[in-house]
């Protein structure tokens, strides 16, 4: 221990205390991947925290410059790997904007269906891994059971469980399989039942409330100041949701609510995911009802060259507002692709809010922010 003690000082009782550095991560059970926090601790209290990320930096933005526009589409799903079907959406919208492609209506509906299903699976993963940080392994399996149901549906459509290369430039990669719609409707009931099980087991649990209520509250001004988006922002009392406020795709045709909670503490950030999951299920049900026939993919040339220009598009992804800045110089390869990742901005709030939390609170805090390292590090 002796070598990284930062210096001794006296506490209020006159005892000599020493602060020490604790490296939480990159290999740590509760950092959800390779996130590392460099904590200066006084006993079990965090004095200051510093984000150390980049352990999963794969240099994808640079790689995009060496690939064609459509070759890069599958890479986009590797950014936020917990929501692999939802991820390429902003990118393909950017491409369609650049190339002036009109997406068939059926494709838009299928995108909404797969995207929302993917949001459900992503939120379930978030609540599951959050309760796992409180060592609730049983609750974790319940959430994973619910998630498996969603993944079954997605797999039938996209052919993959996690990283779906499904949304492509001009539509979706394939049509819905035959007989999928009634199956999906039946499965959604089961998913809701499993979600209710989980909700009953965890949400009202006194210990869970004790560990999340009032921990690291972020008010809406702070949230905006730090660039928080998505569910984290909505848990802070600011009901911003691009799906409702600036509808892309066909979101203006669905009737759904944007849940808002006002305390901005860990419990709110947790519970808003459960609420959003229910809303997403609503959207999927409506989309399945309204699903039109027709084509599912616009005609796009194999060697596709958009006009020179740039597009900046944003969608409401699972972890917040995600934007793509795609610059084209008129060739088949993108000149520059930049992704504004919600997780990267969300973790900016950690150093501000961490001081004064105990280590256990810090764990619930970072779990409730729901970041994904692929999204942060790119």
């Amino acid at each position, binding site marked *: 221990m002796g070598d990284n003690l930062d210096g001794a000082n006296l506490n209020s009782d006159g005892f000599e205390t020493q602060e020490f550095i604790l490296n939480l991560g990159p290999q740590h059970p509760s950092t959800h991947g390779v996130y590392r926090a460099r904590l200066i601790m006084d006993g079990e209290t965090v004095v200051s925290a510093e984000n150390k*990320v*980049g352990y999963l930096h794969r240099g994808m933005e640079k790689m995009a410059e060496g690939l064609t526009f459509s070759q890069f589409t599958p890479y986009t799903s590797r950014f936020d790997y917990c929501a692999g079907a939802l991820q390429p959406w902003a990118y393909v919208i950017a491409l369609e904007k650049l190339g002036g492609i009109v997406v068939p209506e059926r494709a838009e509906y299928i995108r909404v269906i797969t995207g929302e299903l993917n949001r459900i699976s992503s939120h379930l993963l978030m609540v599951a891994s959050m309760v796992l940080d409180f060592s609730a392994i049983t609750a974790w399996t319940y959430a994973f059971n619910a998630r498996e149901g969603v993944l079954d549906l997605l797999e039938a459509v996209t052919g993959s469980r996690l990283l779906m290369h499904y949304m492509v430039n001009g539509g979706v990669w394939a049509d819905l399989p035959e007989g999928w719609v009634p199956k999906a409707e039946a499965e959604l009931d089961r998913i809701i039942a499993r979600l209710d099980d989980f909700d009953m087991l965890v949400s009202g649990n006194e210990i869970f409330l004790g560990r999340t209520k009032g921990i690291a509250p972020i008010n809406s001004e702070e949230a905006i*100041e730090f*660039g928080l988006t998505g569910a984290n922002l909505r848990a802070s009392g600011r009901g911003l949701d691009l799906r409702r406020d600036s509808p892309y795709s066909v979101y203006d045709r669905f009737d759904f609510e944007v849940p808002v909670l006002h305390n901005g503490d860990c419990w709110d950030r947790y519970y808003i995911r459960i609420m959003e999951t229910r809303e997403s299920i609503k959207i999927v049900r409506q989309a399945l009802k309204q699903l039109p026939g027709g084509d599912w993919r616009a005609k796009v040339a194999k060697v596709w060259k958009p006009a020179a*220009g*740039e597009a900046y598009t944003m969608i409401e992804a699972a972890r917040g507002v995600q*934007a793509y800045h795609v610059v084209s110089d008129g060739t088949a390869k993108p*000149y520059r692709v930049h992704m504004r990742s919600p997780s*990267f901005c969300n973790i900016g709030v950690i150093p501000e809010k961490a001081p004064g939390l105990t280590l256990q609170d810090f764990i619930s805090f970072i779990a409730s922010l729901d970041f994904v390292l692929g999204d942060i590090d790119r």
Partner: protein
Amino acid sequence: MRDINKIAAVLPKAEVRDGALVIQASEAVEVLAAVKALGGFALFDITCVDRPAGTPPASAEGAVPAYPACFELAWRIWDLSEGSKDILTIRSFIDHDRAEAPSVMAVWKSADMLEREVWDLMGIRFTGRPHLERVLNRADFEGHPLRKDFVMPKRDRFPPASWDKKAAEGGQ
């Protein structure tokens, strides 16, 4: 979207070009603070495009005046006001030789992570802010990968010899 011309009217140092505000990089703090004072805005993203001399600059509507070689740095401001959830772009063109811009961390705290990212990947040095250090790449990484003149390091099957014990211990 609020009318961009109205916004520009209160910002004496900005001109409207291609649906974006174009400013001198050195005035960024002033302009962004003025935008923030209008209320209902949040710094959403900082993007940067490297445009070496000779490449045709491009923008959505019409062409950006041909700068010889520049970094096209853009602050993307999210308009949060009711009913309009759009992006206000404040752009500035920075010389290749003096890749510098003032930090807007004092205006919006979300700039902290974003500026570190732009520094790491694009090599724009943001002045007037603490700990501008690499955020994604290793501390001993050479170059800024998203620049167009970045030379891909030659990689063989084996990891580079630059790993030392210090890196293994996680000390940066």
